[in-house]
Each structure stands twice: as C-alpha cells, then as structure tokens.
C-alpha cells in the first residue's frame, strides 16, 4: 500500500513510527501523517456508518472538506481523519451515526 520508491518523488519524508489502536487492534503508522493515511496503510477502508441507513463511508475528498471520513479519536467524535495528524498512542474507533455522546470536561 505504501509507495516505497516513487519515480518522481523518491521516498516520502515521514515522522517517527508509532503505535496506535484502531477498534481494539494494535497498529503502526507514522507520527504526523493523517490518521486516514495510517489506517489505509493498515488496510482499513471503512471509517464510519451513517446515522439513518447504517451505510459504510470512507475517505472521499482527503482534504478535510467533505467530512465523510470522520471517526471517534481519543473519545471525540466527528474528527476529520484525513487532516488530523496521527499521534503516538491515539485510540481510533469506527464511528456509528453521530458517535458517542461527549461529556464536557
């Protein structure tokens, strides 16, 4: 999935390799890259299920505009994973509908 040697761009500059959790599974990605990219490189295609029809959704615009790729990140729902940087130890969950209710701290 990752492009190791691009004919024009060569190799891609990435942050440190870090581990994170997706739906209770341990995964690895690079710090600072969008969460969606880290998930995609681990074979994850479905980011959420819609509220009324329970239909799967994934990456669509990849620039933070369409909000199709939103997920629950560290307990916060509706995070645009195509622009949200991956952090060490992030806990990412498939979002169902509007996601879990968040209690304000």
């Amino acid at each position: 999935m990752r492009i190791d040697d691009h004919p024009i761009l060569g190799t891609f500059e990435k942050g440190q390799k870090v581990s994170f959790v997706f739906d209770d599974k341990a995964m690895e990605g690079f710090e600072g890259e969008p969460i969606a990219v880290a998930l995609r490189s681990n074979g994850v295609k479905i980011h959420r299920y819609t509220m009324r029809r329970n239909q799967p959704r994934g990456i669509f615009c990849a620039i933070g505009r369409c909000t199709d790729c939103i997920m629950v990140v560290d307990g916060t729902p509706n995070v645009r994973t195509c622009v949200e940087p991956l952090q060490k130890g992030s806990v990412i969950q498939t979002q169902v509908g509007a996601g879990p209710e968040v209690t304000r701290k």
Partner: protein
Amino acid sequence: MRRCEMISVGAGPAGLAAATEAARNGVEVLVFDENDRPGGQLFKQIHKFFGSEEHHAKERGFDIGYGFLEEAEKLGVEVSLSSVVMGIYENRTMNVLIRDRIEQVRAEKILVATGASENMIPFPGWTLPGIIGAGAAQTIANIHGIKPGENLLMVGSGNVGLVVAYQMLQAGCQVSAIIDAAPRIGGYEVHAAKVARYGVPFFMSHTITEAGGEKWIESATISQVDKEWKPIPGTEKKFELDTVCIAVGLNPMTQLLDMLSCKMVPVPSLGGRVPAHDLGQETSIPGIYVAGDSSGIEEASTAIIEGRIAGLAIAHSLGYIDDSSFLEQRDRQFKSMVGLRSGSHGEARKIAKEYINAVMKG
C-alpha cells in the same frame, strides 16, 4: 483588532503570487490558509508545466510552490496556516479561526483566492468507500505516499482525470480505463498520450452506471451513452476493481464572496457561478479582489498571473506604484496571459473572462 494593508485568503498559486507581487512593491501582506501546509494544490502537481519560461514551463508544481514560499519569506509575507477565514463582514473585517481561537482582522484590501472544489456525479452505489475524488487520489499518493487502491477506474478525461490517472500509474496502481460521457477527450493531447502509452483504454461516450460491493467498492459498471447522454441498455461493461476516481470538473469556491453579496455571473465554461471582476481582478465590492480558480476554473499557470495582476492592482490602489508603472507592469502580465488563453482549450476561457470583465463595466 489587528489591522493590515492586504490579506490573501488562500496560500495557493494565486494567493502566493498576489502576496509576493504586492509585497515586492511595498505592501504589508498577511496570508491565511485553512490547511496546515501552504501551496494549495501545487505540491500535488508532480508533472511538468507547459508554456514558456515565464510560466514556469518544465518546472514541476511542487518546485514552483517552494519557489513562492522562499520568495514570500524573503519579502516578509506572513503566512498563517491552519487558519480558517469564517466570514468577511462590513469594512473588510474578517473572523479567522486560528487553531482553537478566533481572531478579528481588518484589511484595506482583501484577495479571495480560495480555489475550487470538485464536482461529483451520483450513481447507484456512489457512496461506497473506495469511490473518491481524483484530488483525493492525488493527495493520498503524492503527498502522503500511499496508493489509494490497487486497481482503479478514472471517470472524466479532462486534464485532472488524465494527469491523475498518469500519477496513479507512477504510484504503482493499475488503471483499468478512463471513461468520459463526452465523445472526445477533454484534456490536452500530451497528457492523454502519456496514459495511452501505458496501454490504458479510453471509453468515450461512456458513463459509470453502477458501483457494486457490500462494504467497499468491488466492481464498476459503465455504459455507452446516446446523444442525449442517456445510457444505452446492452452496452454495459463491468470492471473488477477497488477504487473509482471521479474527475468531472471543478467549481469555484465563492462562499466568502457570496457572503459579501458580490455580483456573480453564471459562466459554464469557467465552472459555474463566478464573481464578476474587472481587469485588475477587483470584484463588484470595492477592495475585494479575486484570482485563480475562485474567479473561474482555469489552471495553476493562469492563477499565478491573475494573482500577480491582483497584487499589482492592490499595490497601485494603495499608492505604492504610480499609474504609468502599474499599467506597464500589468500590461506585461496581460501579454504573458495571451499564450495561456488561446488554442482549442484556452480560447473559450479567454472569451468567458472578457464577458466577465464586460459584466463588471455594466
């Protein structure tokens, strides 16, 4: 409230060209961009540009981007990233969401260089994961270094469709086909030839009629269309694949201009409703300028020239350039534009831009 002479909303090719041109002439410039990196779509353009040297021909998009950033820094242009301009209000005041705080800023002149968003076409199954915008494919592969999928279909044969299809081949993906409902290839022949050399088949007068798959796209069905663009039964072809890229055009992002009630004109050849503007890129609202795709869909090279024109016009109206010097410098930019707005693809845009300028005059 912070005040400055000029604000560019957008740090893409148009915004950066305007910012550097204005700053070179003495204007104090602040640039906002909602993304966490500047350059707009330039850094995704890994192909070489056309035109002559002054249009950055033979340079790749990302190199042009780096050039602009270096120049902007040298000239003291402040580029504020992760900064969403939420609205522009009376007296050129704007609210900007900078990470988690909101700031109010006021400028003498504002350039809206917000670019464009992608058009989409709905069809049965179009919401399945794996169906993405061509821009998404480009971002994922060229910026983040992963393949959007292994095997894809490109819907649309305009320059975006052709260039992105080629870039997906460079990224190591298979491209099953490029289809277009129009009878002829929409983009430049050079781009089409590059993909054709890889053996990618083109299906003209074809549209996508269905995407199959349970939770992820697994197949795409295309059908030939008749003269009324309706699918002809019995002409279906099915491809097994994991990705479909949609490249069916762009439309100008004009929300901020709409908010200001700028005069808008419907111009299909420029991507939809576009803001009326004069030869100096100023809209119907004094002090509000446009350049690049937000003023009508064209190309990065034309966006750069429009940006420079806007930058010059702003420097002139702020009194940094005298009349004769302004006209001389602007004329140079007009001349540079001639080659880009000519030929089979550019002529229609030239006529459309002249129409928009005429609308401004009333």
